[in-house]
């Protein structure tokens, strides 16, 4: 069967009449796929409510503000989603997000000004950040895949160790006077929008395509759904898991770089507590903690929804002290709603 015969031509509407199939658009979108769009109405509702509460909400500046504040954590959601789909967990992402730029700042920031070592020139900062991310991923993957340790506990240990290392090298202080290269991603504007928003949107677009339309992406679902069956189908499961875990850590390092650039500093608590929001966004976005289920688009909607609600609350004049409590409440309510609409017990 020649490959050209399989080309997915949109004009080709004469589909085979599948028996009792529920589908829209001439069978191109099966009803099951619609679950991924479940959060879109919620996002629209929040947008309308936000606009009613405060007309500032839908203005471009405010929307860009929302997108920019969520860009870094959204990358963690992207990373965690991949890891969850292969039925693993990576709790250490939030510490990686702090440690990777932290190590770079430590090596680069001059001795007198901060508490850096000033060993490397500013140009090294970005490569070092990403390399630390990759190294953390390799250690995680080694322990989880090679030595077969429990992923939850391994990454929990890593979460604590990495946070401690950052506190150690920084002496619990904040690194200032970062080199220009580290500030770039957090401050630059491309085509009238902050670079971090572009990076976030492009990476999600790439992830949606990879997970939905490539053999590699589908192998993630196969591994998460039934690892033995994936092996039997000839998927090199260990290699895929390695790639996923290391990529996830590198993405966390990139997110850290973006956050440090935006804040022009690396605090020793950078990223602390983010992982809870990340999990909440992923689960609200329809990612199953049991693996093999959920889409990147859903995950993106999940984090977007959380940040829009936060923004609406702030604009509505809710005291900042109460935002934390409301955030937790929102997560619970969102889960309850997705249980009702999804109809299945979440395990």
């Amino acid at each position: 069967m020649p490959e050209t015969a399989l080309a997915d031509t949109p004009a080709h509407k004469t589909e085979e009449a599948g028996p009792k199939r529920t589908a829209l658009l001439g069978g191109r979108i099966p009803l099951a796929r619609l679950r991924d769009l479940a959060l879109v109405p919620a996002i629209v509702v929040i947008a309308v409510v936000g606009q009613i509460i405060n007309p500032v909400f839908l203005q471009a500046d405010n929307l860009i503000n929302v997108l920019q504040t969520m860009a870094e954590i959204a990358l963690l959601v992207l990373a965690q989603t991949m890891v969850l789909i292969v039925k693993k967990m990576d709790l250490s992402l939030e510490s990686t997000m702090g440690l990777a730029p932290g190590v770079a700042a430590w090596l680069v920031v001059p001795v007198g000004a901060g508490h850096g070592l000033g060993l490397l020139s500013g140009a090294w900062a970005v490569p070092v950040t990403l390399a630390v991310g990759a190294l953390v991923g390799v250690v995680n993957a080694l322990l989880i895949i090679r030595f077969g340790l429990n992923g939850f506990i391994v990454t929990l240990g890593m979460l604590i160790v990495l946070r401690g290392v950052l506190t150690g090298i920084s002496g619990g202080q904040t690194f200032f006077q970062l080199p220009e290269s580290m500030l770039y991603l957090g401050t630059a504007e491309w085509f009238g929008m902050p670079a971090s928003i572009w990076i976030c949107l492009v990476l999600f677009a790439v992830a949606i395509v990879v997970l939905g339309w490539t053999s590699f992406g589908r192998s993630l679902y196969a591994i998460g759904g039934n690892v033995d069956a994936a092996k039997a189908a000839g998927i090199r499961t260990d290699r895929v898991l390695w790639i996923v875990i290391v990529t996830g850590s590198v993405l966390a390092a990139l997110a850290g770089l973006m956050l440090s650039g935006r804040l022009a500093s690396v605090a020793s608590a950078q990223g602390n507590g983010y992982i809870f929001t990340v999990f909440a966004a992923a689960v609200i976005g329809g990612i199953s903690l049991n693996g093999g289920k959920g889409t990147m688009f859903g995950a993106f909607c999940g984090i977007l929804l959380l940040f829009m609600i936060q923004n609406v609350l702030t604009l509505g004049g809710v005291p900042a002290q109460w935002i934390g409590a409301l955030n937790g409440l929102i997560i619970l309510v969102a889960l309850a709603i997705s249980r009702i609409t999804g109809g299945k017990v979440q395990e």
Partner: protein
Amino acid sequence: MSDGERTATPAPVPADNGRVPSGLPVVEAAGIVKRFGPTVALNGARITIRPGETHALVGRNGAGKSTLVSVLTGLQAADEGTVTFGGSPAPRLADRDAWRERVACVYQKSTIIPTLTVAENLFLNRHGRGRGRLISWQGVRRRAQELLSTWSVDVDPQSPAGDLSVEQRQFVEIARALSFGARFIILDEPTAQLDGAAINRLFDRIRDLQRQGVTFLFISHHLQEVYEICDMVTVFRDARHIVTAPVAELPRTELVAAMTGEAAADRLQERSSSLATTVTPALSVRALDSGATYGDVSFQVGAGEIVGLAGAAGSGRTEVAETVVGLRAATAGDVEIAGNRPRPGSVPAALAAGAGFVPQDRHHQGFVPDMSIADNATLSVPGRLGRSGFLSRSRRDLLAQGLIENLAIKTPGPDLPVSALSGGNQQKVVMARALADDPKLLVLINPTAGVDVRSKEFLLDKVEETARTGTGVLIASDELDDLRMCDRVLVMFQGRVTSEIARGWHDHDLVAAMEGVDLDA
């Protein structure tokens, strides 16, 4: 990797003569030795399967069947011996594609991925690619549709694979195997989870494919099925090859003798009734109604009586039995266990009222696999292990030891995790738990599913023994051997009790009643 270039060939080529010259065996294994540490799983075993035949492989649990399957499918290398396909040696173990073109196995354990669609499962890791090297979902769907209709599998390729019934899943797996070009398929206990009608459909499918040149190796505990569908039979016992003969030339008694190593008498259908009419009935069910699955079910089980509840899958027999023990609640009607009326839908209440219970699927509801035999066997009777919530280990082990001896569970001791036992012994542990509290009513759902011949006899003997002590027994099953010793069998069809058959029935009467066929009409 050129996954995209590999194409499926669903066209039913009658017997691939290019690769398998007729006459040469499809597969031949000789002198296979396989050791796992000190255990010898296969000891010089051999099997020869000729093109177009359906070959049965039988043997008790632990006879080496599963190990042979993993050697034949290239999942494990044999320590000694040779495997040839159509005369040429087997491919390297790492060359999965080459193995898949020669042999496929439909395991008891599903090898589909429940969260993906049927279409994607069929073409996993070999999705066709469209423009830009991305997967063309339309192409995948179309090829899945073609493949399924070529082998007339009536399944929607778009539905999630997790929604398929066991039967549909097997058909999908068979179709997938054929799409790789394999014309030799191993079926590992395919009928274990199917009801009578589905088994017949599976057999029709096997005969159909056989005519198209597909060769089968059929593994089953049900000797009846071997006689129904197979041409040749090979018996393994204790890791060795015992006999290979045409099915027609090997009478049932000889086959059982070959499996067990001793002559087994046919199970006596005669049994003196142990029904005690003067005592309160062990169970009385009045006008039980669930709304959807069954309705208007009324019957009694006397003390010491064994009552069968027969019916095909979906007839409601399992649901009625589960309602009796409180796993489900009925919308109307009531259940009375030994004179008590437990709160509907409460398992503890049913147990307290005097019920003991062997659930339908031991892997799901029967035991906690990693807990010890002692813990599992006493799971339902914490009250007998100590006072005020604290458990006494010594008392637990004493009680468990008694149960292990009583049920002849083959184990080095009560501390072994249940997952390390064979299927038959696992089921004995479940039975031990049901008997742990000397129940007045014993409810068994498919008590001998996936259990070898000897353990089955043992379990059924134990049931009879229990009935003699005055316990009422309800057996919900579609397995004729389970029902043979019942004093009477109630037959359910589409949620209603349609007939009652006294002991001494003929197989075809009961089967006809279960399928809702009237033989006299």
